[in-house]
């Protein structure tokens, strides 16, 4: 960042555009002139103000804006470019939002949409969380099922919404439900997966995407995948919609096997689920409670419990038959005897002070899965996260890593008033440079989620930053190992194999599952001195019989 750059702030009072419209406007302004180095047109939420300050804008200028205002923040090499950028921002903000072309399917209010589509059977909500209750209750009255992607919905609102919906027989997926698949169609963040006999209930959005895409790699299709939101299996909500979804899939004739993907539910919700599955259900089930008990089987092997997403895929494939299991091993599994030699060159190049792993995730479930695996392998060192589970410690500041840190960039402190990091790479870009400049860092671990709703090129959006980070470490006499996992299918628009090739092109280690990427990161940081067979037995199995 040059000392000569001009940092300009304009505040538009009481002005609203959604975060995606603002992201598009920001991108357009950056392309106006090469002299414009940064353009952030954003709602003045606390998160966005924090990010602007970290990008070098003066706290006193940023602090004047209220939450209902838009901030136009420009960094440019000269005043002429600043003026050009602000004028362009004004012009784009004044253009009618979303109405660039005449489209009868796009309207300005819910009532118009309901008039045009009176038989709507699903509403997908991605509106600010404090408005969800009002809209959702209106839709429940009309009997319209909902997938609520919005975060920042008070849990009391969620309970009220779900209780009323349950009384009226309306399905509520979310809040915080980014992903669903219905009849093979992706709703929200989702991938182009084949249709088949598997049904999934998930309180873990990227968990659903990981399991569905990995099954696709094995030639196994998903008919329905219902995301209920992370709060549902907790005591406060009591698994209202998780139980409803399980029952819907149990009675659905197209579904032969059901995967349940979640952080471990509260004991009472887990009891409810297990009781229903053992007493009332008849289909095959794989319970993937990330970080819970693994290797359990009930009802003569009809119900299998595992503890990672990768194991869920192996277990589902195994339940379907020997051929499917062999395909799953071929497509999603790297045996220890192949993994460790492939990493040796990485750990041999590390400097003596390089010991830490830094994970920058866009997917919440990937964060949990990495916490489970790294927390086990690196149990004798402090590990931090902004979303800690099990033995992981809470980060003092989500914007600053310490020791080994596993950061979920999709957590609410990063997303208030801005697009999810699967869409907007801004925060991860500057975090890559920050982590790489720390001489204690050995490994940078990242996920790249392809598919509907995601950035058009999530790998391409940060590939220069990864390349720069590796070069910067090299100039300082260090080697930065970058381990990556791409969640997607060959039919996703972003290009699955092209994304992997780009990462490999700048020297990244790319692994077929997030679980393997986490194992590899720990193995590199520990210079191969890990109990690799024990790790595989715990986290990379298809479940073992206990009855």
């Amino acid at each position, binding site marked *: 960042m040059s000392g000569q750059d001009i940092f300009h702030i304009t505040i538009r009072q*009481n002005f609203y555009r959604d975060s995606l419209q603002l992201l598009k406007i920001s991108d357009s302004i950056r392309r106006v002139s090469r002299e414009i180095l940064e353009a952030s047109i954003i709602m003045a939420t606390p998160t966005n103000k924090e990010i602007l300050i970290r990008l070098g804008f003066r706290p006193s200028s940023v602090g004047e804006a209220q939450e209902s205002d838009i901030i136009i923040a420009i960094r440019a090499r000269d005043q002429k470019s600043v003026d050009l950028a602000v004028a362009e921002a004004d012009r784009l903000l004044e253009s009618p939002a979303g109405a660039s072309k005449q489209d009868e399917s*796009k309207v300005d209010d819910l009532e118009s949409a309901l008039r045009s589509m009176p038989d709507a059977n*699903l509403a997908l909500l991605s509106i600010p969380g404090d408005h969800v209750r009002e809209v959702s209750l209106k839709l429940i009255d009309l009997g319209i099922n909902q997938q609520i*992607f919005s975060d920042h919905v008070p849990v009391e609102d969620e309970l009220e919404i779900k209780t009323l919906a349950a*009384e009226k027989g*309306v399905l509520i997926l979310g809040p915080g439900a980014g992903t669903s698949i*219905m009849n093979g169609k992706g709703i929200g963040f989702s991938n182009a997966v084949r249709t088949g006999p598997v049904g999934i209930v998930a309180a873990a959005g990227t968990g659903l995407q990981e399991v569905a895409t990995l099954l696709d790699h094995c030639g196994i299709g998903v008919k329905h995948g219902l995301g209920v939101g992370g709060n549902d299996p907790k005591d406060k909500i009591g698994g209202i919609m998780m139980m409803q979804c399980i*029952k819907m899939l149990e009675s659905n004739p197209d579904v032969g096997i059901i995967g349940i993907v979640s952080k471990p539910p509260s004991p009472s919700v887990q009891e409810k689920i297990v009781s229903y599955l053992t007493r009332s259900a008849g289909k095959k089930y794989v319970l993937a409670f990330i970080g819970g008990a693994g290797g359990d089987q009930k009802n003569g092997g009809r119900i299998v419990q595992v503890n990672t997403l990768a194991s869920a895929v192996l277990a589902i494939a195994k339940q379907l038959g020997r051929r499917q299991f062999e395909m799953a091993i071929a497509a999603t599994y790297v045996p220890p005897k192949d993994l460790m030699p492939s990493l040796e060159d990485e750990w041999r190049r590390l400097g003596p002070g390089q010991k830490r792993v830094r994970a920058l995730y866009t997917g919440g479930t990937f964060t949990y899965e990495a916490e489970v695996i790294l927390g086990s392998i690196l149990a004798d060192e402090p590990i931090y996260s902004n979303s800690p589970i099990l033995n992981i410690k809470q980060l003092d500041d989500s914007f600053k890593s310490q020791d080994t840190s596993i950061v979920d960039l999709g957590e609410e402190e990063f997303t208030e008033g801005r697009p999810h990091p699967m869409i907007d790479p801004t925060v991860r870009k500057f975090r890559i440079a920050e982590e790489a400049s720390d001489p204690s860092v050995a490994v940078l671990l990242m996920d790249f989620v392809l598919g509907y709703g995601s950035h058009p090129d999530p790998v391409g959006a940060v590939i220069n930053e990864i390349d720069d980070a590796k070069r910067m470490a090299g100039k300082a006499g260090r080697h930065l190992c970058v381990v990556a996992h791409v969640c997607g299918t060959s039919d996703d628009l972003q290009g699955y194999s092209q994304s992997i090739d780009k990462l490999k092109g700048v020297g990244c280690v790319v692994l077929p599952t997030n679980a393997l990427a986490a194992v590899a990161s720990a193995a590199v940081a520990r210079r191969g001195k890990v109990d690799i067979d024990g790790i595989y037995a715990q986290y990379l199995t298809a479940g073992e019989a206990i009855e």
Partner: protein
Amino acid sequence: MTDSGSARKLLDSELKVINLGLDIFYNALVEQNVKAMHVNWKPAPKLDKETEDILDKML
């Protein structure tokens, strides 16, 4: 959950979706040939404190 609600029929019916908020999700539905409407949703404009106080007194 009642047996007569719309949830029971959802997975057996053709999807008809109203998308409120981010148009990227609407575009994804259209790409998959799902029938969808997009609502360019905006919150009601926030009143300034003075107007809010006057309205409070009137109502």
